[in-house]
Protein backbone atom coordinates (compact mmCIF):
# COMPACT_ATOMS: atom_id res chain seq x y z
CA UNK A 1 0.00 0.00 0.00
CA UNK A 2 2.99 2.36 0.10
CA UNK A 3 2.47 3.43 -3.50
CA UNK A 4 -1.04 4.55 -2.59
CA UNK A 5 0.13 6.59 0.38
CA UNK A 6 3.75 7.66 0.84
CA UNK A 7 4.69 7.46 -2.82
CA UNK A 8 1.76 9.56 -3.91
CA UNK A 9 2.24 12.33 -1.37
CA UNK A 10 1.66 15.70 -2.91
CA UNK A 11 4.84 17.63 -2.27
CA UNK A 12 4.34 20.75 -4.39
CA UNK A 13 2.14 23.82 -4.45
CA UNK A 14 2.76 26.93 -6.56
CA UNK A 15 2.36 30.18 -4.64
CA UNK A 16 4.13 32.47 -7.12
CA UNK A 17 1.29 32.31 -9.65
CA UNK A 18 -0.61 35.63 -9.46
CA UNK A 19 -3.95 33.97 -10.26
CA UNK A 20 -3.55 31.88 -7.10
CA UNK A 21 -3.31 34.94 -4.75
CA UNK A 22 -5.18 34.78 -1.43
CA UNK A 23 -5.02 38.53 -0.82
CA UNK A 24 -4.93 40.80 -3.88
CA UNK A 25 -5.16 44.47 -4.70
CA UNK A 26 -4.14 45.70 -8.19
CA UNK A 27 -2.57 48.87 -6.76
CA UNK A 28 -0.77 47.48 -3.74
CA UNK A 29 0.14 43.83 -4.27
CA UNK A 30 -0.72 40.30 -3.30
CA UNK A 31 -0.06 37.54 -0.78
CA UNK A 32 -0.36 33.76 -1.23
CA UNK A 33 0.02 31.08 1.39
CA UNK A 34 0.76 27.41 1.43
CA UNK A 35 -0.20 25.57 4.59
CA UNK A 36 -1.48 22.17 5.67
CA UNK A 37 -4.92 22.94 4.20
CA UNK A 38 -3.60 23.11 0.65
CA UNK A 39 -0.52 20.91 1.08
CA UNK A 40 -1.45 18.33 3.75
CA UNK A 41 2.06 16.90 4.22
CA UNK A 42 2.99 20.13 6.03
CA UNK A 43 0.82 19.07 8.97
CA UNK A 44 3.36 16.42 9.90
CA UNK A 45 6.25 18.85 9.93
CA UNK A 46 4.52 22.01 11.23
CA UNK A 47 5.78 24.25 8.47
CA UNK A 48 4.16 26.65 6.01
CA UNK A 49 5.17 29.45 3.65
CA UNK A 50 3.93 32.77 2.32
CA UNK A 51 4.81 34.60 -0.88
CA UNK A 52 4.14 38.32 -1.16
CA UNK A 53 4.52 41.26 -3.50
CA UNK A 54 4.25 44.92 -2.45
CA UNK A 55 4.05 47.44 -5.29
CA UNK A 56 4.48 51.21 -5.56
CA UNK A 57 5.66 51.90 -1.99
CA UNK A 58 2.68 50.03 -0.58
CA UNK A 59 2.84 48.78 2.98
CA UNK A 60 1.73 45.76 4.92
CA UNK A 61 -0.13 47.04 7.99
CA UNK A 62 1.48 46.30 11.40
CA UNK A 63 0.88 42.68 12.43
CA UNK A 64 2.38 39.84 14.41
CA UNK A 65 2.71 36.11 13.79
CA UNK A 66 0.29 34.54 16.22
CA UNK A 67 1.64 31.00 16.35
CA UNK A 68 4.93 30.82 14.48
CA UNK A 69 8.32 32.30 13.86
CA UNK A 70 8.78 33.70 10.38
CA UNK A 71 11.99 33.66 8.33
CA UNK A 72 11.73 36.24 5.56
CA UNK A 73 13.84 36.00 2.40
CA UNK A 74 13.82 39.00 0.04
CA UNK A 75 13.49 37.76 -3.53
CA UNK A 76 13.47 41.10 -5.37
CA UNK A 77 13.57 44.80 -4.50
CA UNK A 78 13.91 46.25 -1.01
CA UNK A 79 11.68 47.14 1.90
CA UNK A 80 11.88 49.17 5.08
CA UNK A 81 11.04 46.84 7.94
CA UNK A 82 10.58 47.53 11.63
CA UNK A 83 10.23 44.81 14.28
CA UNK A 84 9.17 45.53 17.87
CA UNK A 85 9.51 43.24 20.91
CA UNK A 86 7.37 42.83 24.03
CA UNK A 87 9.04 45.83 25.70
CA UNK A 88 7.97 48.13 22.86
CA UNK A 89 11.63 48.33 21.76
CA UNK A 90 12.56 48.38 18.10
CA UNK A 91 14.76 45.33 17.58
CA UNK A 92 15.09 45.83 13.83
CA UNK A 93 14.74 49.03 11.87
CA UNK A 94 16.30 48.87 8.47
CA UNK A 95 16.16 47.76 4.91
CA UNK A 96 15.77 44.20 3.79
CA UNK A 97 17.37 43.81 0.39
CA UNK A 98 17.32 41.16 -2.28
CA UNK A 99 19.11 38.02 -1.12
CA UNK A 100 18.92 38.82 2.61
CA UNK A 101 17.18 36.82 5.33
CA UNK A 102 15.41 38.28 8.38
CA UNK A 103 14.04 36.36 11.38
CA UNK A 104 10.79 37.59 12.92
CA UNK A 105 10.14 35.87 16.27
CA UNK A 106 6.62 34.79 17.21
CA UNK A 107 4.43 37.61 18.56
CA UNK A 108 6.94 40.36 17.71
CA UNK A 109 5.13 43.15 15.87
CA UNK A 110 6.31 43.98 12.36
CA UNK A 111 5.59 46.53 9.65
CA UNK A 112 6.84 46.30 6.03
CA UNK A 113 6.93 49.11 3.51
CA UNK A 114 8.17 48.65 -0.05
CA UNK A 115 11.05 51.01 -0.79
CA UNK A 116 11.23 50.07 -4.43
CA UNK A 117 8.59 49.77 -7.15
CA UNK A 118 8.23 46.12 -6.35
CA UNK A 119 9.26 44.19 -3.24
CA UNK A 120 8.92 40.44 -3.44
CA UNK A 121 9.53 38.04 -0.57
CA UNK A 122 8.95 34.53 0.67
CA UNK A 123 8.43 33.79 4.38
CA UNK A 124 8.91 30.35 5.89
CA UNK A 125 6.83 29.82 9.01
CA UNK A 126 7.26 27.32 11.82
CA UNK A 127 3.63 26.25 12.04
CA UNK A 128 1.64 24.34 9.45
CA UNK A 129 -1.29 26.69 9.98
CA UNK A 130 0.57 29.93 10.66
CA UNK A 131 -1.70 32.88 11.37
CA UNK A 132 -1.10 36.59 11.56
CA UNK A 133 -2.98 39.10 13.66
CA UNK A 134 -3.12 42.61 12.21
CA UNK A 135 -2.94 45.71 14.42
CA UNK A 136 -4.51 48.15 11.93
CA UNK A 137 -7.16 47.85 9.25
CA UNK A 138 -10.44 46.11 8.60
CA UNK A 139 -9.70 42.80 10.30
CA UNK A 140 -7.43 44.08 13.05
CA UNK A 141 -7.50 43.43 16.76
CA UNK A 142 -7.83 47.20 17.30
CA UNK A 143 -11.09 47.20 15.35
CA UNK A 144 -12.49 44.43 17.54
CA UNK A 145 -11.95 46.43 20.75
CA UNK A 146 -14.71 48.84 21.88
CA UNK A 147 -13.91 52.48 21.06
CA UNK A 148 -14.37 53.48 24.69
CA UNK A 149 -11.76 50.93 25.78
CA UNK A 150 -9.32 52.42 23.26
CA UNK A 151 -10.23 55.97 24.27
CA UNK A 152 -9.45 55.23 27.94
CA UNK A 153 -6.39 53.15 27.11
CA UNK A 154 -4.78 55.75 24.82
CA UNK A 155 -6.25 58.80 26.63
CA UNK A 156 -7.87 60.06 23.43
CA UNK A 157 -11.44 61.02 22.56
CA UNK A 158 -14.00 58.48 21.34
CA UNK A 159 -14.00 60.13 17.93
CA UNK A 160 -10.24 59.70 17.68
CA UNK A 161 -10.56 56.08 18.81
CA UNK A 162 -13.17 55.61 16.12
CA UNK A 163 -10.78 56.99 13.48
CA UNK A 164 -8.10 54.54 14.62
CA UNK A 165 -10.59 51.71 14.25
CA UNK A 166 -12.29 52.55 11.00
CA UNK A 167 -10.10 54.87 8.87
CA UNK A 168 -8.05 52.12 7.25
CA UNK A 169 -10.48 50.18 5.05
CA UNK A 170 -8.02 47.58 3.75
CA UNK A 171 -7.21 44.48 5.75
CA UNK A 172 -3.56 43.60 5.11
CA UNK A 173 -1.86 45.49 2.29
CA UNK A 174 -2.46 49.21 1.92
CA UNK A 175 -1.29 52.21 -0.04
CA UNK A 176 1.41 54.29 1.57
CA UNK A 177 1.45 58.07 1.28
CA UNK A 178 4.27 57.92 -1.28
CA UNK A 179 2.19 55.71 -3.57
CA UNK A 180 0.91 57.08 -6.87
CA UNK A 181 -2.69 56.34 -5.93
CA UNK A 182 -2.49 57.63 -2.36
CA UNK A 183 -4.86 60.36 -1.29
CA UNK A 184 -7.51 59.47 -3.84
Amino acid at each position, binding site marked *: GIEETLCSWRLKENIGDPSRADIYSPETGRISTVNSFNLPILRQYQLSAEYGVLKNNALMVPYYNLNAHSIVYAIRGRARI*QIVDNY*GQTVFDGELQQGQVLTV*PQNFAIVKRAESERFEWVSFKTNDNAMISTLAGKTS*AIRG*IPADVLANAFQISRE*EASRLKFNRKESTVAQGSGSPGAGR
Partner: protein
Amino acid sequence: QQWQQTQNQCQLDRIQALEPNNRVECEAGRIESWDPSHDQFQCAGVAVVRRKIEPNGLLLPHFSNSPQLIYIIKGRGINGAVISGCPETFQDSRGSSQQGQGRRRFQDQHQKIHHFREGDVLFIPAGIPYWAYNNGNEEVVSVSLIDVSNNANQLDLRPRKFHLAGNPEHDFEPQEEQRRRGEQGHSRGQQGSGQRSSCNNVFCGFDSRILAEAFNVDQKLIERIQNDNDDRGQIVKVKGGELQVVRPPSLQDERYEQEESPRRYGRGN
Protein backbone atom coordinates in the same frame (compact mmCIF):
# COMPACT_ATOMS: atom_id res chain seq x y z
CA GLN B 1 16.90 20.81 24.88
CA GLN B 2 13.97 22.40 26.63
CA TRP B 3 12.89 18.99 27.87
CA GLN B 4 16.34 18.29 29.28
CA GLN B 5 16.43 21.70 30.87
CA THR B 6 13.05 21.12 32.47
CA GLN B 7 14.16 17.74 33.78
CA ASN B 8 17.15 19.32 35.51
CA GLN B 9 14.99 22.06 36.93
CA CYS B 10 12.81 19.42 38.52
CA GLN B 11 15.61 18.13 40.79
CA LEU B 12 13.90 19.80 43.73
CA ASP B 13 15.20 19.16 47.23
CA ARG B 14 12.41 21.04 48.85
CA ILE B 15 9.13 22.54 47.73
CA GLN B 16 7.89 25.70 49.37
CA ALA B 17 4.64 27.63 49.53
CA LEU B 18 5.43 30.98 47.94
CA GLU B 19 4.06 34.48 48.28
CA PRO B 20 4.22 36.84 45.30
CA ASN B 21 7.54 38.66 45.21
CA ASN B 22 6.85 41.39 42.67
CA ARG B 23 4.14 44.03 43.04
CA VAL B 24 3.17 46.68 40.55
CA GLU B 25 0.79 49.40 41.72
CA CYS B 26 -1.47 50.82 39.02
CA GLU B 27 -3.92 53.71 38.88
CA ALA B 28 -6.89 51.38 39.50
CA GLY B 29 -5.45 48.18 40.85
CA ARG B 30 -2.43 46.06 41.57
CA ILE B 31 -0.55 43.26 39.79
CA GLU B 32 1.35 40.73 41.86
CA SER B 33 3.55 38.05 40.36
CA TRP B 34 5.65 35.13 41.49
CA ASP B 35 9.23 34.92 40.24
CA PRO B 36 8.98 32.70 37.13
CA SER B 37 12.66 31.79 37.37
CA HIS B 38 12.05 29.97 40.69
CA ASP B 39 12.90 26.25 40.36
CA GLN B 40 9.35 25.18 41.14
CA PHE B 41 7.87 27.21 38.32
CA GLN B 42 10.70 26.31 35.93
CA CYS B 43 10.02 22.65 36.65
CA ALA B 44 6.32 23.04 35.92
CA GLY B 45 6.97 25.37 32.98
CA VAL B 46 4.47 27.94 34.21
CA ALA B 47 4.21 31.46 35.64
CA VAL B 48 1.57 32.80 38.04
CA VAL B 49 0.14 36.28 38.42
CA ARG B 50 -2.60 37.78 40.63
CA ARG B 51 -4.51 40.89 39.60
CA LYS B 52 -6.72 43.19 41.63
CA ILE B 53 -8.91 45.55 39.65
CA GLU B 54 -10.78 48.28 41.52
CA PRO B 55 -14.38 49.17 40.60
CA ASN B 56 -14.38 51.13 37.31
CA GLY B 57 -10.87 49.86 36.60
CA LEU B 58 -9.84 48.74 33.11
CA LEU B 59 -7.12 46.18 32.44
CA LEU B 60 -5.53 47.45 29.23
CA PRO B 61 -5.47 45.25 26.11
CA HIS B 62 -2.45 42.99 25.87
CA PHE B 63 -1.51 39.54 24.63
CA SER B 64 0.83 36.88 25.91
CA ASN B 65 3.25 34.44 24.28
CA SER B 66 1.53 31.56 26.11
CA PRO B 67 -2.03 30.44 26.83
CA GLN B 68 -3.54 31.50 30.16
CA LEU B 69 -6.12 30.10 32.53
CA ILE B 70 -7.66 32.72 34.79
CA TYR B 71 -9.75 32.03 37.89
CA ILE B 72 -11.97 34.80 39.22
CA ILE B 73 -11.61 34.74 42.99
CA LYS B 74 -13.87 37.71 43.67
CA GLY B 75 -15.98 40.32 41.89
CA ARG B 76 -17.59 40.62 38.50
CA GLY B 77 -16.99 42.42 35.24
CA ILE B 78 -16.80 42.24 31.48
CA ASN B 79 -13.97 41.24 29.21
CA GLY B 80 -13.08 40.79 25.57
CA ALA B 81 -10.67 38.45 23.81
CA VAL B 82 -10.13 39.91 20.37
CA ILE B 83 -9.45 37.55 17.49
CA SER B 84 -8.10 39.27 14.43
CA GLY B 85 -10.34 38.61 11.44
CA CYS B 86 -13.49 37.82 13.43
CA PRO B 87 -16.44 40.12 12.72
CA GLU B 88 -17.62 42.89 15.02
CA THR B 89 -20.87 41.21 16.04
CA PHE B 90 -21.81 43.64 18.82
CA GLN B 91 -23.17 46.69 17.01
CA ASP B 92 -24.97 49.80 18.09
CA SER B 93 -26.89 50.93 15.01
CA ARG B 94 -29.13 53.48 16.73
CA GLY B 95 -28.59 57.00 15.38
CA SER B 96 -27.57 59.74 17.75
CA SER B 97 -30.82 61.66 16.99
CA GLN B 98 -32.84 58.92 18.69
CA GLN B 99 -30.88 59.07 21.88
CA GLY B 100 -32.82 61.77 23.67
CA GLN B 101 -31.44 63.73 26.59
CA GLY B 102 -28.68 62.83 28.96
CA ARG B 103 -25.45 61.22 27.92
CA ARG B 104 -25.17 60.92 24.19
CA ARG B 105 -24.63 57.34 23.12
CA PHE B 106 -21.69 56.71 20.89
CA GLN B 107 -22.16 54.47 17.87
CA ASP B 108 -19.67 51.64 17.81
CA GLN B 109 -19.16 48.06 16.77
CA HIS B 110 -16.75 45.54 18.20
CA GLN B 111 -16.22 41.86 18.88
CA LYS B 112 -18.13 39.86 21.45
CA ILE B 113 -17.95 40.87 25.10
CA HIS B 114 -18.28 38.33 27.92
CA HIS B 115 -19.49 38.75 31.47
CA PHE B 116 -17.46 37.12 34.21
CA ARG B 117 -18.07 36.64 37.90
CA GLU B 118 -16.69 34.91 40.96
CA GLY B 119 -15.92 31.24 40.34
CA ASP B 120 -15.45 31.56 36.57
CA VAL B 121 -12.45 30.09 34.80
CA LEU B 122 -11.45 32.00 31.67
CA PHE B 123 -9.14 30.67 28.97
CA ILE B 124 -7.11 33.11 26.90
CA PRO B 125 -5.28 31.55 23.94
CA ALA B 126 -1.68 32.57 23.20
CA GLY B 127 -1.37 35.71 21.10
CA ILE B 128 -4.99 36.79 21.51
CA PRO B 129 -5.40 40.35 22.84
CA TYR B 130 -7.42 40.48 26.04
CA TRP B 131 -8.90 43.31 28.15
CA ALA B 132 -11.14 43.34 31.22
CA TYR B 133 -13.25 45.90 33.06
CA ASN B 134 -14.62 45.87 36.59
CA ASN B 135 -18.24 47.07 36.35
CA GLY B 136 -19.16 45.84 39.83
CA ASN B 137 -19.10 47.49 43.23
CA GLU B 138 -16.29 45.43 44.68
CA GLU B 139 -12.72 44.70 43.70
CA VAL B 140 -12.14 41.98 41.07
CA VAL B 141 -9.43 39.57 42.20
CA SER B 142 -8.13 36.94 39.78
CA VAL B 143 -5.26 34.49 39.68
CA SER B 144 -3.80 33.43 36.32
CA LEU B 145 -1.65 30.54 35.25
CA ILE B 146 0.54 31.24 32.23
CA ASP B 147 1.63 28.00 30.59
CA VAL B 148 4.96 29.06 29.11
CA SER B 149 5.98 25.48 28.24
CA ASN B 150 2.85 25.00 26.13
CA ASN B 151 3.38 24.04 22.48
CA ALA B 152 1.69 27.27 21.44
CA ASN B 153 4.72 29.21 22.71
CA GLN B 154 7.66 28.96 20.34
CA LEU B 155 9.65 31.66 22.14
CA ASP B 156 11.74 30.93 25.25
CA LEU B 157 10.29 29.93 28.63
CA ARG B 158 9.94 33.53 29.84
CA PRO B 159 6.39 34.83 30.19
CA ARG B 160 6.16 37.79 27.80
CA LYS B 161 3.35 40.30 27.61
CA PHE B 162 2.83 42.48 24.55
CA HIS B 163 0.89 45.64 25.42
CA LEU B 164 -1.35 47.24 22.83
CA ALA B 165 -1.83 50.43 24.83
CA GLY B 166 -0.53 52.50 27.71
CA ASN B 167 2.92 52.35 29.18
CA PRO B 168 2.69 49.54 31.71
CA GLU B 169 5.47 48.01 33.72
CA HIS B 170 6.16 44.33 33.11
CA ASP B 171 4.66 41.97 35.66
CA PHE B 172 7.49 39.51 35.93
CA GLU B 173 10.41 41.85 35.81
CA PRO B 174 11.89 43.36 38.97
CA GLN B 175 11.47 47.14 39.02
CA GLU B 176 15.24 47.80 39.03
CA GLU B 177 15.58 45.82 35.83
CA GLN B 178 12.72 47.78 34.26
CA ARG B 179 14.26 51.08 35.28
CA ARG B 180 17.59 50.08 33.75
CA ARG B 181 15.95 49.03 30.49
CA GLY B 182 13.84 52.20 30.48
CA GLU B 183 16.96 54.35 30.80
CA GLN B 184 18.63 52.44 27.97
CA GLY B 185 15.56 52.87 25.80
CA HIS B 186 15.34 56.55 26.62
CA SER B 187 18.94 57.18 25.61
CA ARG B 188 18.36 55.22 22.40
CA GLY B 189 15.32 57.40 21.72
CA GLN B 190 17.39 60.52 22.26
CA GLN B 191 19.89 59.32 19.69
CA GLY B 192 17.26 60.06 17.10
CA SER B 193 16.02 56.66 15.96
CA GLY B 194 12.58 58.22 15.39
CA GLN B 195 10.84 55.82 17.80
CA ARG B 196 9.74 56.57 21.34
CA SER B 197 11.75 53.78 22.86
CA SER B 198 11.18 54.44 26.57
CA CYS B 199 7.51 53.54 26.19
CA ASN B 200 6.30 49.98 26.51
CA ASN B 201 3.41 49.33 24.12
CA VAL B 202 4.10 47.71 20.76
CA PHE B 203 3.12 50.82 18.79
CA CYS B 204 5.93 52.79 20.44
CA GLY B 205 8.57 50.84 18.56
CA PHE B 206 7.28 51.91 15.15
CA ASP B 207 8.01 55.08 13.25
CA SER B 208 5.02 57.38 13.79
CA ARG B 209 4.95 58.30 10.07
CA ILE B 210 4.62 54.68 8.97
CA LEU B 211 1.94 54.06 11.60
CA ALA B 212 0.04 57.15 10.46
CA GLU B 213 0.03 55.69 6.95
CA ALA B 214 -1.02 52.26 8.19
CA PHE B 215 -3.94 53.64 10.23
CA ASN B 216 -4.69 56.36 7.70
CA VAL B 217 -4.80 58.99 10.44
CA ASP B 218 -2.73 62.10 11.19
CA GLN B 219 0.68 61.70 12.79
CA LYS B 220 -0.33 63.70 15.87
CA LEU B 221 -2.88 61.08 16.83
CA ILE B 222 -0.24 58.36 16.48
CA GLU B 223 2.15 60.34 18.69
CA ARG B 224 -0.56 60.41 21.34
CA ILE B 225 -0.93 56.62 21.33
CA GLN B 226 2.86 56.38 21.66
CA ASN B 227 2.65 58.38 24.87
CA ASP B 228 5.63 57.59 27.09
CA ASN B 229 4.46 59.93 29.86
CA ASP B 230 1.58 57.65 30.79
CA ASP B 231 2.26 56.45 34.35
CA ARG B 232 -1.14 54.86 35.07
CA GLY B 233 0.15 51.30 34.76
CA GLN B 234 -1.72 48.41 33.21
CA ILE B 235 -4.95 48.92 35.17
CA VAL B 236 -6.43 52.37 34.60
CA LYS B 237 -9.45 54.25 35.89
CA VAL B 238 -12.18 54.81 33.31
CA LYS B 239 -12.91 58.50 32.89
CA GLY B 240 -16.43 59.92 32.97
CA GLY B 241 -18.33 57.10 34.66
CA GLU B 242 -18.94 53.59 33.43
CA LEU B 243 -17.24 52.20 30.33
CA GLN B 244 -19.57 52.58 27.35
CA VAL B 245 -19.62 49.42 25.29
CA VAL B 246 -22.30 47.65 23.29
CA ARG B 247 -23.33 44.67 25.38
CA PRO B 248 -26.40 42.65 26.19
CA PRO B 249 -27.66 42.89 29.79
CA SER B 250 -26.80 40.10 32.19
CA LEU B 251 -29.66 37.75 33.17
CA GLN B 252 -29.99 39.63 36.45
CA ASP B 253 -30.22 43.02 34.69
CA GLU B 254 -32.76 41.65 32.19
CA ARG B 255 -35.02 40.32 34.93
CA TYR B 256 -34.85 43.64 36.71
CA GLU B 257 -35.72 45.45 33.48
CA GLN B 258 -38.69 43.14 32.84
CA GLU B 259 -40.02 43.73 36.34
CA GLU B 260 -39.46 47.45 36.20
CA SER B 261 -40.71 48.34 32.71
CA PRO B 262 -44.49 47.73 33.20
CA ARG B 263 -44.33 49.73 36.40
CA ARG B 264 -42.41 52.54 34.74
CA TYR B 265 -44.21 52.77 31.41
CA GLY B 266 -47.69 51.32 32.10
CA ARG B 267 -49.26 48.39 30.31
CA GLY B 268 -50.74 49.98 27.14
CA ASN B 269 -49.49 49.17 23.68
